[in-house]
């Protein structure tokens, strides 16, 4: 299978603390990959580097696009280096990304994410949340909007329809006109997924989607994740603590501990891996059973 996302040598330091140390893994197109590890292992930090919220200290993140590969670190805007001044093309690119780059470009490249602590636009309605997510797909021309041209109205209707489609899939259709902040917690989590989907991603990154859900909701969530892959052709990268969910949906598991990858492979293989057991159960490596 072709890799959609390649992470190589990803290192992230906060002051003296190394949250990530040369992390590397790939996500194949059309797969469901789980990123697991104990609390504080650096999973969310991987997401933040991936989606451009943190500027990685070192390493490369490459996304295969329809038109070739894209360097997700460069588009955040990097500091200029001395060597850039010898190469006008690199210099121009760097200057451009320094001024206009940022995490929003990562989403435009086709990566969408959810957050560990739900981040909704609480005082806006569910539908408005989804419309904001489609910002790049609607008619943004100011004049067209002010005059209400047919093109503008068509684009708005299409956006509402697309939002409704996703709400239907996530079972939130009846809540379309409620305030996002008023929804029950489980619905908020699903709304956040729907919102990420509305950006039209190729890679969907979910940060602990099952946290705080009851077993029945978790069950429904795993069905949903599987359906997103089979019916909507999405590639999914998932952080999760709930092992039954991970075992059920994922094709590939990457285990992080203290900022380092300690194992990767199929769920079965990883489950047997002694280092993983040690990391999770906190046993001495030699003294383990």
């Amino acid at each position, binding site marked *: 299978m072709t890799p959609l996302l390649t992470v190589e040598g990803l290192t992230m330091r906060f002051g003296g603390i190394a949250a990530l140390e040369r992390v590397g893994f790939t996500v194949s197109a059309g797969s469901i990959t789980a990123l697991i590890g104990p609390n504080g292992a650096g999973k969310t930090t991987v997401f933040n580097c991936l989606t451009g*919220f*943190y500027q990685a200290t070192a390493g490369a993140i490459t996304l295969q696009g329809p038109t070739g590969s894209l360097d997700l670190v460069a588009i955040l805007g990097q500091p200029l280096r001395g060597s850039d001044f010898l190469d006008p093309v690199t210099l121009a690119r760097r200057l451009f990304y320094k001024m206009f780059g940022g995490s929003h470009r990562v989403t435009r490249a086709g990566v969408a994410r959810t957050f560990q602590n739900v981040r909704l636009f609480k005082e806006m309605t569910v539908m408005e949340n989804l419309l904001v997510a489609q910002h790049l797909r609607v008619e943004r021309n100011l004049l067209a909007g002010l005059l209400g041209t047919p093109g503008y109205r068509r684009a708005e209707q299409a956006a509402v329809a697309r939002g409704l489609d996703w709400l239907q899939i996530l079972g939130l259709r009846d809540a379309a006109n409620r305030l996002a902040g008023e929804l029950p917690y489980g619905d908020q989590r699903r709304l956040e997924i729907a919102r990420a989907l509305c950006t039209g991603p190729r890679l969907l990154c979910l940060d602990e989607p099952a946290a705080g859900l009851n077993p029945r909701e978790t069950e429904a969530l795993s069905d949903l994740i599987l359906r997103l892959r089979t019916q909507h052709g999405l590639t999914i990268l998932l952080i999760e603590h709930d092992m039954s969910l991970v075992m059920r949906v994922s094709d590939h598991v990457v285990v992080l501990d203290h900022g380092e990858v300690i194992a990767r492979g199929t769920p079965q293989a990883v489950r047997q891996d002694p280092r993983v057991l040690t990391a999770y159960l906190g046993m001495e490596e030699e003294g383990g059973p």
Partner: protein
Amino acid sequence: MDLHIIGQQAVNGLILGSIYGLIAVGYTMVYGIIGMINFAHGEIYMVSAYLTAIFLALLTAFGLQSLPVVLFLTLLLTMAFTALYGWTVERLAYRPLRGSTRLAPWISAIGISLVLQNYVRISQGARNQGIPVLLEGKFRLQAAAGTVQITHVQVVIVLVALASMAVLTWIMHHTSLGRCCRATQQDRRMAELLGVDSGRIIATVFALGAAMAGVAGVLVTLNYGSFDFYIGFVTGIKAFTAAVLGGIGSLPGAMLGGVVLGLAESLFSGFVNTDYKDVFAFAILVLVLIWRPSGLLGRPEVEKV
């Protein structure tokens, strides 16, 4: 360029800087503990200038003769009453807003500064007020081509500013109150779990910051002799600039930022242009915030996602 003029401007700048530093402490402590810019702090300083004049007049009217005693009592009374103002403002206008939107404390603070300004204007009248000259005399230092004058008041200002900063630093590092402050600053929830009454600590920080502004008020009044109900605004922003320049949240930073700003401003007005000295100070503020928001001694913030 004459050396003695530079020297004279440096002395003036140092004095100005100590004042800014004393006020900046209030901004920095409050920001450190609840992450809020206490916009009304400049007005507290303005109130303290009035209190200074009032207590001086009152003590003199009681027939106290010894100048050091009068000044010392004025300082204590002004600090106490300014602290009371700081405490009250926190209690009435900021505490109920905890957990509200980010804009709410700002707007409340702007409201409070309008209230304080006009409260003083209505009670005390809009005209300039002042105190008589109490300390005369100056030291003269020979510099290359002229003399640099340092008045006795200026010496008093530097000494008092240093002493009060020292006391404050001691409080923050060696008393249980200071420990609680620092703990609350690091992690309020955790401190509360350990039994720290964070509400009381925050109120105390406001009171301490206000008391330092009170010191500044006394010193400024001694130095310049006159004030009006409007002095809090510009001085407040400049003191805030000093706090940012030094790295907001850091006590030594506030003092350092004050001195740097005071020197810069006074050298600018001495050698470039007096009319634009405020523009210069505000420009420093804008540039520092754009290029080095963490200031000279502060640590850069990483936003948590």
